[in-house]
């Protein structure tokens, strides 16, 4: 009798599962755009690798043909810009950051995804996406207005916030603890000068002549000093880079470079900064939280770098202990071309590659960091996988709620941040008598660049 009962229960469970899953399948028609073809532009990135490895499954599920192109980051945006400006719909979807989307949406090249988000598979669970990353990709198109409102310009594929990665082996050897304040950071930099020979240094940060130098640790620290890039005055954007807070922050930053930075700091992109931490040349890295991760993996017993396994994470330093660490945001997102002829099929692709199942695969099986879904961050398998990166999840949890895009959205973002980086290089190399003089000259340049923006026209 017991056997019969358990057999009946099993059959009932299997039947109910089949019926439920059948209903779910029936509720969403994945074959609606069968036979259509879409073109997707990828930048060379772990996210692209994860997506491309699953495209065949997507094609089998939907009957949509996907054609892809993968371009190195150095040339990627030139290619996308040219494709979008042709207004031919030659690409349907493209990877982008929020800053680029400000430019593209101003020109009308980007499809607002708000209405598409009502057409999702029942198991999509929009609320499970890290909401601050989704909000970072929403903007109303008015220069000076913060992100978070308006058109949904893209959906996140991965993101990064900024924290302090450090070599725990060296810190233990020297009896140091991760710095929590700016004063402590300077003191630790002093203590770690040439810690591993004359070609080693304390802190790796970016310094190249492009916007990438400004947006990671620099912009986060800038905001933590209470500085702002722009204010709106009489319907005009006015640069505030010459404010007392901005000057104080830049004085600190220049000192930090002098005391702890790389000798070739002005050439450093994220790559050189991360590589030096991994090679044991830098003892700390103030950059994207996932930058140090690439140096710290030990996959199948093979270390990613000389210091793999020795890298740990701490929350970024702030002015005084207990202050909220405000971090800037970078998201690699996927956006839809406003001139696409296959928007329905493109939306299916976007939805499929931001769903729970794929997000879990991308970050747990593959190496896509940081995961875009809360369920992945809480997944025991992910937590187990990230155990080798001590402090990574803790520093994420301590920072994520105070993470947002700290720049003021405006269409001259790349002009202003490139000039900003160039001026920072000039200040460090002593071209200006003081930091204040440099920041005042920069403010003038930036005000000129945005002078044509009249907010009364929006």
């Amino acid at each position, binding site marked *: 009798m017991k056997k019969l009962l358990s057999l009946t229960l099993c059959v009932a469970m299997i039947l109910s599962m089949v019926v439920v899953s059948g209903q779910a399948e029936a509720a969403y028609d994945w074959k609606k755009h069968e036979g259509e073809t879409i073109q997707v532009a990828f930048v060379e990135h772990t996210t692209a690798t994860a997506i491309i490895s699953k495209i065949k499954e997507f094609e089998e599920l939907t009957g949509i043909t996907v054609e892809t192109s993968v371009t190195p980051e150095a040339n990627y945006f*030139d290619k996308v*810009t040219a494709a*979008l*400006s042709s207004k031919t719909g030659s690409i349907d979807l493209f990877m982008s950051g929020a800053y680029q989307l400000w*430019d593209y949406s*101003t*020109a*009308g090249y980007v499809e607002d995804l708000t209405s598409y988000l009502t057409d999702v598979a029942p198991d999509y669970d929009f609320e499970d996406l890290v909401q601050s990353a989704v909000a970072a990709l929403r903007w109303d198109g008015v220069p000076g207005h913060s992100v978070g409102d308006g058109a949904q310009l893209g959906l996140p594929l991965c993101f990064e916030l900024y924290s302090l990665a450090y070599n725990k082996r060296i810190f233990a050897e020297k009896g140091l603890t991760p710095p929590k304040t700016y004063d402590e950071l300077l003191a630790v930099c002093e203590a770690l000068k040439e810690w591993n020979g*004359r*070609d*080693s240094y304390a802190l790796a940060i970016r310094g*190249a*002549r*492009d916007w990438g130098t400004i947006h990671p640790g620099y912009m986060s620290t800038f905001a933590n000093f209470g500085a702002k890039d722009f204010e709106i005055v009489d319907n005009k954007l006015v640069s505030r880079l010459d404010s007392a807070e901005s000057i104080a922050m830049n004085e600190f930053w220049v000192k930090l470079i002098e005391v702890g930075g*790389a*000798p*070739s*700091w*002005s*050439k450093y992109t994220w790559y*050189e900064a991360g590589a*030096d931490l991994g*090679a044991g*040349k830098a003892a700390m890295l103030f950059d994207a939280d996932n930058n140090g991760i690439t140096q710290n993996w030990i996959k199948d017993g093979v270390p990613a770098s000389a210091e793999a396994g020795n890298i740990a994470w701490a929350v970024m330093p702030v002015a005084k202990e207990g202050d909220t660490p405000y971090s800037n945001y970078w998201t690699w997102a996927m956006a839809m071309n406003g001139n696409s002829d296959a928007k329905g099929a493109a939306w299916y692709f976007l939805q499929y590659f931001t769903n729970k199942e794929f997000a879990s695969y991308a970050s747990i099986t593959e190496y896509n960091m940081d995961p875009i879904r809360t369920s992945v961050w809480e997944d025991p398998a992910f937590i187990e996988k990230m155990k080798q990166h001590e402090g990574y999840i803790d520093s994420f949890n301590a920072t994520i709620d105070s993470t947002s895009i700290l720049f003021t959205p405006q*269409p*001259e973002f*790349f*002009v202003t941040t*490139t000039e900003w*980086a*160039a*001026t920072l*290089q*000039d200040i*460090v*190399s002593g*071209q200006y008598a003081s930091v204040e003089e440099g920041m005042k000259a920069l403010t003038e340049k930036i005000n000129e660049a945005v002078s044509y923006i009249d907010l009364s026209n929006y």
Partner: protein
Amino acid sequence: MQSQPRPKPEKAEKQINYNEVPASIRRRPYYIVLPGLIILIGIMIPFVTAITLSLTNFSFKIPVTKFVFLKNWINLFTNKDFYQALGVTLRYALFATGTQMLLGTCAALLLRKDNWFSRLLKVLFTFPLMVAPAIAVLVWQLMTSNTVGVLEDFLNLFGVYNFPWAASRQTAMFTAVLIDTWVNLPFVILLVLAGIQSLPKSPFEAAQVDGASSWFTFKTLTLPLLKPFMYIALLFRLMAALQEFGIIFALTKGGPGNTLMNLSLTGYLTGFTYQNIGKSMPYLLVLWMIVNISAKFIVKRQRRLTLEAAGKQ
């Protein structure tokens, strides 16, 4: 000696009546020049487009393009960055071309002897030419890295640590020219060497018989005869150096500060990174004018030197 009279044609040449010539034959000369015309149009289209765009506010960020007439040109000539870029362009071209011409000519003169060593060197010298400039920069970036570079290790032997290479305003131009020279010096060597090997032997034999010194022979024979070839090398190298983009972009993106921001880079940055094509075109058109004027001057001089070397002037 009396010249032979030209034999008269047996029959008087028949007058051609072009109206009797079939149309297909009459059109033949036009067909012959047609490919050239098409190529010329192909060359002129981007050029005319560039001039037109320089008179507009064309930007990837603005959906509607308007004519702004000379606004972009006025902006250019009143912008401090333009003069900075112009200065960098000219300094870089002078420094890179001068170094390459001097070293290339010296190396070619040393390699003119035909023995196994010079043959080996000639082969080795062609290797850098096969490397794309951007790849060469990547290799040099690794070599000059303060943390993992072999050149840093080498300098350490002499007590020099953390040489700044491209990271400093003082040494960035030197580093860019060094890489440019590594890539392009073989081109100059091979061109000048080809010139040396094509020189007539008799004047040198005569000078030897007259007991002329090596320096005198070089000064009065080798150099004047070689100059037309050197001018060809100079033409190619100067044009490329004025337009240099790849090495500087891959090395420092024009930094530190504006140290290496030449006209090409400023035009590219304005056009593509800042997405303002209308504003970027005047930079590139000014560069075109400089390259064109320099090239015309060098070609004219090269022609005169060729005639002089041939004793026709």
